[in-house]
């Protein structure tokens, strides 16, 4: 039963060729049978047919004749322009019927659709086209159904269509109300802030931001070590008698980074001070030059007097003092965690020097 499905073009061409060849095209077998399968195929083809139908050349017969013949109204009515047949059908039925009938003609089914375009012209003109141009498939359908058509008033009146279901009447589409945001709460200008604060998205974003901020702070704290393997900042350096008048001791420079200087050249009074061995220019370690009695930085040539005052080179300020005091056991104790800068007047602070006599 399932023959090869033909496109609409093939069916029409086939019918035209059979018409021209004067063979009876009566599809007497299936005037009423509406094969659902064929209908479905007919739908697709019907959709494709109008553009191609519009492109096809004028045929010798009007399509109404063809459809009428296909409908098989009166068995041997040749070229009768009587589309008003006894049993009206939809296009699907007609095509299905034609397919069922022409399924017995395998030879003609091999005609490709483009070739069917040429066939109408090739098969010549049995009779002149009544209207001069082939109506579109829509017109044909309309004509069959009896609706007012564009060019063919001779179409039959409306007929009942038993196969097609009546089109259901749809209720009118209601007017869509404007969309509401935020679910329960309607956002107005007055309560937009509240909406932002209360909605779930707001809560989610707040938590995400808080978590990100907390993670960043935790990361910064993580990067600061709690345990340092460094020399101690407070250390004892021996009794004051270890540091004679007018000397600079480099004993603690390598291990602790201080010079112990016993001099009276700053303010005329004899003091023991601890100078940090860090050049105030960019942080290199100067050297004490005993013969020239000055601190000299090898990096860029900054020079400091024995008191620590800068006098040459790019150093902008004197060397820094660190805390020095006498511990209970009579030893001098240096505290590097406090520093005293001369240019700020901090060398007057007692913790910055140990007075002698």
């Amino acid at each position, binding site marked *: 039963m399932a023959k090869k499905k033909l496109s609409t073009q093939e069916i029409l061409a086939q019918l035209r060729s059979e018409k021209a060849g004067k063979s009876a095209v009566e599809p007497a077998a299936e005037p009423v049978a509406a094969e659902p399968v064929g209908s479905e195929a007919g739908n697709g083809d019907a959709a494709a047919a109008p553009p191609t139908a519009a492109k096809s050349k004028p045929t010798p017969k009007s399509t109404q004749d063809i459809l009428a013949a296909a409908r098989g109204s009166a068995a041997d009515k040749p070229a009768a322009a009587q589309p008003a047949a006894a049993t009206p059908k939809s296009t699907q039925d007609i095509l299905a019927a034609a397919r069922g009938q022409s399924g017995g003609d395998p030879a003609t089914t091999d005609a490709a659709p483009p070739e069917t375009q040429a066939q109408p012209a090739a098969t010549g003109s049995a009779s002149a086209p009544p209207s001069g141009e082939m109506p579109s498939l829509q017109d044909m359908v309309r004509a069959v159904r009896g609706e007012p058509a564009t060019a063919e008033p001779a179409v039959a009146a409306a007929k009942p269509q038993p196969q097609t279901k009546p089109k259901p009447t749809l209720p009118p589409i209601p007017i869509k109300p404007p969309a509401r945001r935020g679910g329960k709460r309607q956002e107005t200008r007055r309560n937009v802030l509240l909406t932002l604060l209360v909605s779930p998205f707001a809560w989610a974003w707040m938590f995400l931001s808080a978590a990100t901020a907390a993670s960043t702070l935790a990361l*910064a704290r993580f*990067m*600061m*070590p709690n345990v*340092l*393997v*460094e020399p101690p900042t407070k250390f004892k350096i021996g009794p004051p008698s270890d540091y004679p008048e007018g000397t600079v001791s480099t004993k603690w420079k390598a291990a602790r980074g201080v010079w112990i200087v016993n001099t009276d050249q700053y303010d005329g009074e004899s003091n023991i001070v601890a100078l940090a061995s860090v050049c105030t220019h*960019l*942080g*290199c370690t100067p050297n004490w030059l005993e013969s020239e009695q000055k601190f000299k930085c090898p*990096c860029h040539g900054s020079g400091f007097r024995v008191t620590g005052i800068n006098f040459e080179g790019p150093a902008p300020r004197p060397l820094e003092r660190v805390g020095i005091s006498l511990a209970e056991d009579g030893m001098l104790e240096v505290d590097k*965690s406090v520093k005293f800068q001369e240019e700020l007047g901090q060398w007057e602070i007692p913790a910055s020097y140990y007075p002698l006599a």
Partner: protein
Amino acid sequence: MSVGDYIRNSQIWKSIFRHPAPYDRRNRIVVMLTNFFLHLHPVSVKQHGIALSYTWCMGGITFFLFLVETITGVLLMFYYRPTLEWAFNDILALRDVTTLGIMREIHRWAAHAMVITVWLHMYRVFLTGSYKPPREFNWVIGVLLLVLTLLLSFTGYLLPWDQLAIWAITVGSNMARATPFLGTEGPGYQLLNIGGYDLITSASDAKFLLLGGRFVGENALNRFYILHCVAIPLVVAGLIAVHFWRVRKDGGISQPL
């Protein structure tokens, strides 16, 4: 059937190389687009896109040097220990006794060259106006890459642990002390004070964060080693991918708009 054909028709081969070698334009496109490594590059490039007088090829050379640095860097890591005890000696050993230890010199030279080519690339992009809309963001990414390249140079400089390295990093990190609010010698750090407890001290300021200590010591060496070999290269690799992608999406290399 030849051995080659037999192999190329085997299931294992087909599962690795899903498509045959390109034999026509369509297949060439398919091979490019379905390859993880190749699809970052466009299938075809305009001829003037590879004109040396247009691009100087500085971006490509910079990327090539980055690959050289990565490969030599990874190989150097097998013979270098970032500790006070071993760092300097390992560098000497790479120079004197390690096979192909010349990679240490290559690494150093390529680093200098990469900084130069990065600047030249930036200069070329400026001269050709390739920063104008819609390419502004790519310029920003480029600046970030420039800063990260310089940071790679800075962190890598410390690793040989010689006098040049220690003092250079000392001078550089001393500048961190002058950071506003976060440095003990900068302005405003006294404001970060909670209930009389100083938040910013010599053991908790920006310089301390950078060095992991109060001066350039073993902590600083370890930190710079990790930054130089892992952290910054990861970020750079990601930004390079974005940088290349933006070139394509913003209209292609050397394309007029």
